[in-house]
C-alpha cells in the first residue's frame, strides 16, 4: 500500500482546444496517507470521478504530477500503477465460475496455486459466497455479480490502493448495508489505502475516516464525518450533508447577538467578523438542533410534516425562508410553535464561508 500525493493537479477535458481554460478539476494539492479510508463525495459533475481517474491512470491530468510513495507515476498506465478498481457496474467473466473470477487477478500475477486457493477461499467467505463458488457468473443476479466485482477488487493483497467508483449504487438497499459494513470491516482488518467515490452521503460518511467534499471541480472541505456535520466550512457542505441539510438564514450581528429578521438570538460567546464588511452574513443550524416550542422562540408557519418512521421532518417557513426541524419519534408539534436554536450548534457564515462556530 502506498501514500498518494497529488501535486498541482488540474484537469480540463478541452485542453489545447480553443481559448480559455474550462477546468473540470481546478488546481489542487492533496496528500493521502498510506492505509487510510477516504471518500470523495459530491453531486454529479463535481469532478470526483475525474479525480479518481487521474489517480487510477485512466486519465492523464492536463497539469501536475501524481506520486505514489514520493515516486512520480504520472506517466504510468493503470496496469503499471498496481492498483485495484471496482466500478458501478459489474465487471465479470460470465463464462467463468465465481471462484475462477476471483482467482483471475492472482493468476495474472503468477501466484502459486495453493496461495491462490487460500486467498480465494478467504474472499468468498468475506462476501458470503462460499455456496456459489462453483456457479458460473452468467446465471447470477446483478447483486451477486457486483459482489464478484468487489471481490476481484479485494482479492490481491499487494496492490498500492483500491479505488471504488460508486460500487454500491446499483445494489438493493438491504444488501447495500451488508456490503458497506463488510468493506468497513475489511479496511479495519487489512488497512488498505482505499478511495471511494460516491454521491451518497451515508455511504461516504460511514465508510471513510476522512471525507473529501467536492463541488464544481474543487475540494470544499476535507474532514471527519463529525467535522462535516458539526462545522461545515461552506454552506454548500452544510446543505449537501444531512437529510434534510443545514438550515441557512440571512442574519445580522448586534454585539454578540445574532439578529434574524428582527428576532434576537443570544449566542453567549464572542464572534469575530471583519467589521469593515459585515455584509453577507448567514446563520447555519442543522434541523437536528432546532426545537419547536409553544408560545416562544421565533414564530413560524408549519408548511409540512413528513413522518419517516424513525423521526419526523417538519417543514416550516419564516419570512419566506424554509426552516426544517427534526423531531424524534412520538414527539408532537406544539400549538403556536416557535423555533429555538441550540446556541452551541449555531454556525456563522460570511459570503458562504464559515466565520464562527459553536
Amino acid at each position, binding site marked *: 500500500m502506498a501514500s498518494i500525493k497529488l501535486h498541482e493537479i488540474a484537469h480540463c477535458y478541452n485542453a489545447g482546444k480553443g481559448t480559455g481554460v474550462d477546468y473540470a478539476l481546478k488546481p489542487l494539492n492533496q496528500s493521502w496517507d498510506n492505509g487510510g479510508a477516504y471518500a470523495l463525495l459530491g453531486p454529479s459533475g463535481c469532478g470526483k470521478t475525474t479525480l479518481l481517474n487521474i489517480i487510477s491512470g485512466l486519465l492523464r491530468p492536463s497539469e501536475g504530477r501524481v506520486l505514489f510513495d514520493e515516486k512520480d507515476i504520472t506517466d504510468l498506465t493503470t496496469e503499471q500503477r498496481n492498483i485495484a478498481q471496482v466500478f458501478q457496474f459489474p465487471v465479470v467473466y460470465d463464462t467463468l465460475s465465481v471462484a475462477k473470477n476471483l482467482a483471475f487477478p492472482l493468476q495474472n500475477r503468477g501466484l502459486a496455486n495453493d496461495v491462490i486457493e487460500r486467498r480465494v477461499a478467504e474472499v468468498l467467505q468475506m462476501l458470503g459466497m462460499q455456496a456459489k463458488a462453483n456457479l458460473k457468473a452468467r446465471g447470477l443476479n446483478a447483486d451477486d455479480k457486483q459482489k464478484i466485482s468487489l471481490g476481484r477488487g479485494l482479492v490481491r493483497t499487494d496492490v498500492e490502493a483500491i479505488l471504488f467508483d460508486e460500487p454500491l449504487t446499483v445494489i438493493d438497499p438491504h444488501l447495500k448495508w451488508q456490503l458497506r*459494513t463488510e468493506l468497513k470491516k475489511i479496511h479495519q482488518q487489512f488497512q488498505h489505502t482505499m478511495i471511494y467515490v460516491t*454521491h451518497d452521503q451515508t455511504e461516504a460518511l*460511514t465508510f471513510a475516516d476522512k471525507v473529501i467534499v467536492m463541488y464544481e471541480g474543487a475540494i470544499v472541505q476535507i474532514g471527519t464525518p463529525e467535522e462535516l456535520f458539526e462545522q461545515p466550512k461552506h454552506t454548500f457542505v452544510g446543505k449537501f450533508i*444531512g437529510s434534510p441539510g443545514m438550515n441557512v438564514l440571512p442574519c445580522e450581528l448586534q454585539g454578540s447577538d445574532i439578529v434574524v429578521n428582527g428576532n434576537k438570538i443570544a449566542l453567549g460567546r464572542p464572534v469575530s467578523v471583519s467589521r469593515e464588511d459585515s455584509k453577507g452574513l448567514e446563520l447555519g443550524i442543522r434541523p437536528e438542533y432546532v426545537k419547536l416550542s409553544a408560545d416562544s422562540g421565533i414564530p413560524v408557519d408549519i408548511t409540512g410534516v413528513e413522518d419517516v418512521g424513525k423521526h419526523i421532518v417538519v417543514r416550516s417557513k419564516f419570512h419566506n425562508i424554509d426552516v426544517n426541524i427534526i423531531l424524534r419519534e412520538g414527539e408532537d408539534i406544539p400549538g403556536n410553535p416557535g423555533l429555538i436554536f441550540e446556541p452551541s450548534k449555531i454556525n456563522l457564515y460570511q459570503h458562504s464561508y464559515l466565520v464562527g462556530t459553536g
Partner: protein
Amino acid sequence: MLELDKVSLSLDGEVFLNDINLTLKRGELNILLGPTLAGKTTLMRVMAGLDKPDRGSIRFDGESVLGVPVQERNIAMVYQQFINYPTLSVYENIASPLKVAGLDKVKIDSRVDQVAGLLRLEEFLDRKPNTLSGGQQQRLALARALVKEAELVILDEPLANLDYKLREELRSELPKLFAESGAVLVYATTEPSEALVLGGNTACMQQGRIEQFGPTLDLYRHPEALQSARTFSDPPLNTVTLNKGKEGLTISGTSQVINLPQQQLIAGKYTMGVRPHHLSLEKCSGIDIEVNGVVTVTEMSGSESFIHFNFNGNDWVALVHGIQNYYSGELVSFYIQPSNIFLFDALDRVRNHNSVEATK
C-alpha cells in the same frame, strides 16, 4: 379506480405474479415496495396492458381493460432511465403528448407553461434535453407524464438514477405535483425510506406476491408478517429466535426471559423483531429489555452511529444518536421498550399487533 382481481403471470414455469388483488383509487399515490425481482415492474406492465396476465381480471373505472392496447388507454409512464426526445426542445418535449391529442396552440402553450412552472423548467424551454443535468432531464420526463393528464400514471423507480440530494428534493415535491391530478398513481421503489417520505399507500412485494397493502405509515408501524417488516426496514430488521415454554418466553439457547405485555401464547418457537433505532444505550424504564452483545464494527455518519454487534449468534445493528465509537470486540448493552418489539409466530405472522397499536 384500478382493480386487479386474482392476477397471476408465469413464464416458462417461473411465477412472476402470484394472485395479486389490489384496488387503487384515483388521486392517491400507491407505492410498490420490494427488492429487485419482487415483481414490481411486471405488475406495472400488466397494469398498463403491456403484458397480459395468465389469469385474473383488470378493470379501470369498472370496465375491463384486458386486451385493450396501451395506446388506446390514457397512460403515462416514467422509467428509471430518463427518456426524452433528443432532437426536440424542452418546450416541444412537454408539448408532444398535447399535440398528439390535437389540442390548439393556445391551450398547449398555457398547459406547457403551467407544468414547466411546477417542475421548475421555465428557463430551459428553448434548450435541448442533452444540455440539461440528470435531475432536470428526469423532471422533463415527469413533466411530459404530468401534462398528459393521464388516467393511469406509472413511475418505475423514477429517481433511482439521480444524485442523492436531487432525489431528496424531488421526493418531497412529487406527491404535491401529482396530488391534484385525479389519476391512479403507481410508484415503484426498492427503498423503504423513499416510501416513507412519499407517504400514500404502500404494497410490500416479495417474490411476485403482495405481502401487505395499506397506508404507508400503518404498514411501517404494524407489519402483519415478518416479511413485510423486513421489506420495510432500512437498516435491516434485527431478529432473534424465542422459545415459549414453562419459564415463559425466552431467548433461544439462553435463560433470558422476555416479558411482553400480552402473552397468551402457545408453546413453540417465535421470532422477535426490533428496528435498529429502537435499541437505546440508556435504560428508559424498569420494564425495558436488555440485550448484550459483542461489537463487530461501528459506522458513524456525523449525526448518528450504527453499532453492529453479535447478539446470540445473530448480526444486529443499533442506530443511535450522536457519535458513539465502540471498538470491535467491545461488550455493549442496549435497552428496548417492550412496546417496540414485534413478535412473530412459527408461521411468521405477527402476534402482538395490539400492543404495538397501543403505543401510537
